């Protein structure tokens, strides 16, 4: 698949690419579901009205195009005397977040992040919130963060306990053992390893 970069806005890492004859916008965070199709005349508008640079670059894959665009953001900002920080402090983000956004983030921690057992992510967010001015500007978010932190800790303990329980039980291939096929399975596994392929050669 050829990805042709038709135009790009280097400082933002945004590109207009042509794939299978269609123009698409790609932009950070470069999600595959967020590549709107653009009208053909939009290309000229982007270049002549909105400061995009025309391009003739071609890439073998989306990932290569994204790597190029990402690097453009680094290079152009460096040439402007700006550095992109290696990391962004969570506190800095939450310091400037309005209440509706903080509530939205807390909802996601409660409904998505903790249930998905992404405990480190939840903890990082909640501790950042408690360290930020958000918890003093909006005390209710601080209280909710404390409750969620407790829930996260409790869920993490439960999860760790369950993992330990499983690790302590010998649950390796109980079904094969029960059916007396363990030795045959070991032989097959060795055969596949030596052959380097799951499939047997045709006879």
């Amino acid at each position, binding site marked *: 698949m050829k990805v042709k970069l038709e135009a790009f806005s280097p400082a*933002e890492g945004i590109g207009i690419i042509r794939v299978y004859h269609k123009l698409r916008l790609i932009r*950070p*965070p470069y999600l595959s579901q967020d590549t709107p199709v653009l009208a053909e005349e939009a290309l000229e508008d982007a270049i*002549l009205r*909105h400061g995009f640079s025309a391009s003739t670059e071609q890439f073998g894959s989306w990932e290569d195009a994204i790597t190029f665009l990402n690097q453009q953001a680094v290079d152009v900002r460096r040439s402007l005397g700006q550095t992109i*920080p290696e990391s962004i402090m969570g506190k800095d983000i939450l310091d400037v977040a309005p209440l509706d956004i903080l509530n939205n983030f807390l909802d996601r921690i409660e409904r998505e992040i903790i249930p998905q057992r992404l405990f480190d992510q939840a903890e990082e967010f909640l501790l950042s919130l408690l360290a930020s001015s958000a918890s003093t500007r909006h005390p209710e978010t601080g209280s909710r963060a404390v409750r969620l932190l407790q829930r996260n800790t409790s869920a993490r303990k439960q999860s760790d306990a369950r993992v330990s329980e499983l690790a302590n039980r010998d649950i390796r291939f109980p079904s094969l053992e029960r059916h007396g096929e363990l030795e045959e399975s070991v032989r097959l596994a060795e055969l596949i390893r030596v052959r380097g392929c799951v499939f047997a050669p045709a006879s």
Partner: protein
Amino acid sequence: MLDLFAIARGNANAVHAAFESVIASMPPEQAALVREFAAWVETETLISINVKLLVIVEFLNGGRYQNTYEWAQEQSRLSGRSAEDALRERLQEHYEKRVTFDRAFKDGEQFRYGALNGGGVGLPEYAPYCVVLARNSPISLGDIAYLPGDSLKICFAADGSFDPTVIESRTAPHTHRHLMAANERAIEVPLANKQEWPDLVASSGRFFEVVFIGDVSLETVECVRVLKTEYHRMWDMAFANFGRKLRDAERALVQDFVQMRRGVIDGRIQVEVVS
């Protein structure tokens, strides 16, 4: 060489006459609506420019809006190559069209291109932040011309040649912008409800272009409008910062967004989130 602003000023009477002629040809109730629309354009619309987030950050850091030529000059200073080369490299096959238009006019390389804005986010596809200029911004009212569409479309013939006929006949000065807009949308106004009037002024692919000369900086900005979808897209990216290391371009944008939000909290800039 053409003087765009002198042409616009010279068109004032013709624009007024064209408006009155259209009004006279309409049934009274429709004519009244078109007059009301014209009055609304005069009192409610402002000039807007769609920009990328980095431009807002540059405003907050004391910078000014750059047009293509000023950008090329800056590139020349930074890299040592000629501004013309930077311009050609950026525009490539579109170079001729851009410079043909701008260089046909006196001071054309100083032009800024905006759009008349009645409350929407302008043309946000590539430049999602709609900078609305303050009514009392220090832009000289004599250095503004209002066009009935995108200059790079309406001033070029099908064969690609420059054709300034539209400029010469339909461009309006600031004092007559509302009459020009009402005249251009006279058929649509009676069919639209008033909530749709901002869309009659500017919607995707159709707008009244405003060409002017003057500085655009934080001091001249009334507010910045951004679509709710874009606003939440940026917050989503900021939220992702808690789960993984963001790419450089993502961190750059999140950093810009945080700076813009800080400007909002400090009361230096007003951002309206528009559905």
